[in-house]
């Protein structure tokens, strides 16, 4: 006869275990399938019933990505490719790697610049008592109310007038405007949880506002800073619409655009597309996993030791 207390504990353990497994399956399942698919050939992928795990894992798809050269696409080469049975490379496959580089570059710039801009503005709004502080915050947050689609055409015209089409500058600046409101919000919440006495002590000790930011607020707000960096990088890695419109030629395009091109091309080999997806997923996932702890505590305002 199991003691009631033990029984409750077992019951709780079983319940937690059950839901945990469910959660893992839900969250990781689709991605696992994506990875598995990328390691199979088209023939294996289109088998019915499908191979859950690759029967003989192959890196052929990835080789194709990393080694693709521009193939002359003629009627012949296309006809040779039966998407269901052989590997067929979509035209433009060679653009994947360069676009990867573009995405990285843009992402890094956005993350860094975002940090510089957001931290200074967040400090001012959170800490300095000045007239118009509320209004400034609302103005910043309100810019995100208009859907991006509405902004595309005028933005494109502006960018074109400035001769900045196909430049990283245009993308970076656009993404900055897109990410700043959220990161400012996170940073402000975090700054506000830092005890006011610490600010007073620093100012009286001899810190100008910039010095106070540097010596007191930044060191204590590390989680929020990391969360902001992550968010800025991931958002620009992810971003699609603006990149679609602001970059016209393949040299400047970012990863999502190139991948979407594959998907639209209905003769594409599925396993290849999945492989491309895996590549697109790796950097953000690695970053998120590495910095998970900071992301969560960065979103938690009010956990500061004072």
């Amino acid at each position, binding site marked *: 006869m199991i003691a009631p207390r033990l029984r409750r504990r077992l019951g709780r353990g079983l319940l937690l275990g059950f839901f945990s497994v469910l959660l893992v399956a839900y969250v990781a399942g689709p991605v696992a399938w994506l990875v598995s698919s990328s390691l199979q050939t088209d023939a294996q992928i289109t088998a019915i019933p499908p191979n859950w795990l690759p029967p003989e894992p192959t890196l052929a798809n990835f080789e194709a990505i990393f080694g693709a050269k521009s193939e002359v696409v003629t009627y012949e080469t296309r006809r040779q490719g039966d998407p269901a049975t052989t590997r067929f490379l979509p035209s433009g496959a060679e653009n994947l790697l360069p676009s990867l580089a573009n995405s990285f570059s843009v992402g890094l710039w956005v993350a860094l610049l975002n940090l510089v801009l957001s931290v200074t503005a967040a400090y001012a709004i959170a800490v300095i008592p000045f007239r118009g502080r509320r209004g400034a915050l609302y103005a910043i947050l309100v810019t995100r109310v208009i*859907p991006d689609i509405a902004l595309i055409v005028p933005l494109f015209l502006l960018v074109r007038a400035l001769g900045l089409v196909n430049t990283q500058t245009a993308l970076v600046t656009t993404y900055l405007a897109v990410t700043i409101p959220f990161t400012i919000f996170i940073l402000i919440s975090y700054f506000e949880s830092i005890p006011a006495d610490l600010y007073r002590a620093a100012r009286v000790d001899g810190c100008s506002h910039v010095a106070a930011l540097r010596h007191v607020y930044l060191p204590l707000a590390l989680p929020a800073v990391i969360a902001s960096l992550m968010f800025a990088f991931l958002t620009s890695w992810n971003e699609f619409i603006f990149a679609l419109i602001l970059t016209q030629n393949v040299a400047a395009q970012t990863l999502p655009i190139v991948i979407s091109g594959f998907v639209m091309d209905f003769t594409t080999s599925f396993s290849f597309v999945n492989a491309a997806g895996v590549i697109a997923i790796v950097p953000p996932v690695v970053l998120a996993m590495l910095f998970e702890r900071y992301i969560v505590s960065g979103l938690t305002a009010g956990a500061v030791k004072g």
Partner: protein
Amino acid sequence: MQMFRGLSYDERNAWLLVAPVFAVLVAVALYPIAYSFYTSLYDIVLTRPWRRPFVGTGNYERILADPQFWIAVQRTTVYTLVTVAATTILALGVALLLNEAFPGRRLLSALILLPWATPSIVNGLMWKWIYDPSYGLLNALLLKLGMIERYTVWLGDPAKTLFMIANAAVWKQMPLAAILMLVTMKAIPADLYRAARVDGANAFQRFIHVTLPALKPGFMLVLVYETMISIRHFDLFLIMTQGGPGDASYTLSWQIYVETFRSLKFGLGAALSYILAMATFLLSWMFIRMLGRGMEK
């Protein structure tokens, strides 16, 4: 007094620190917003760029009279409702689970970030592959579990389209919502639970009377945020269904895209954008009013 003699030290610093952000936002957000509004007042069609009469509210009137618009409204409403509801409920469940202490919890917390980190393009592509009518995982799985008799069409079935897309959206958005709720949950003082236990409340009652009320601000935040995002989802629709089949997934965002970039009716597209923006603004306003009664900030 002294104060009116120019700005004080604090104020000068504050504006200097905020200026760069403003500069970026004015260029990238403000100017396009204003220009967009301006455009919406004109009948601009790029196929006949020489004639651009001022129509004032003409575009808006045309839109409101267009049955296609109302279909788009219906699609958007259904989609947003489903997505927000599913995201919020799932997020709550996940947050509750992660709030408990058990071995492996840290790992699980890190793992749930997987969907959040997935680019929406990859998300769409991944689910599209899973939904594939001929080779997809969903069909295989359900067949194996005996829930369906043969391979069915998922995305291509107008009755199911919106829900399948919503599923992909929920999968990606749920982690962030769960984290936001978890963070709120962790702030609930332990003493409240202790008092409840002493009063004789069991786990379920504690959930109803302590957890839920204290979660209100987190709940509201998630609702507002999710609604604002879901209402304007575009990427998934572009990758997965392109508004189809037929107009099964013809949402407002899609309509804006079609009118602006396919029909090239810039004026109309701009007007539509503004309607969507107004709707988003109003909804957020409403939620924030309700939220404002729950908490101060």
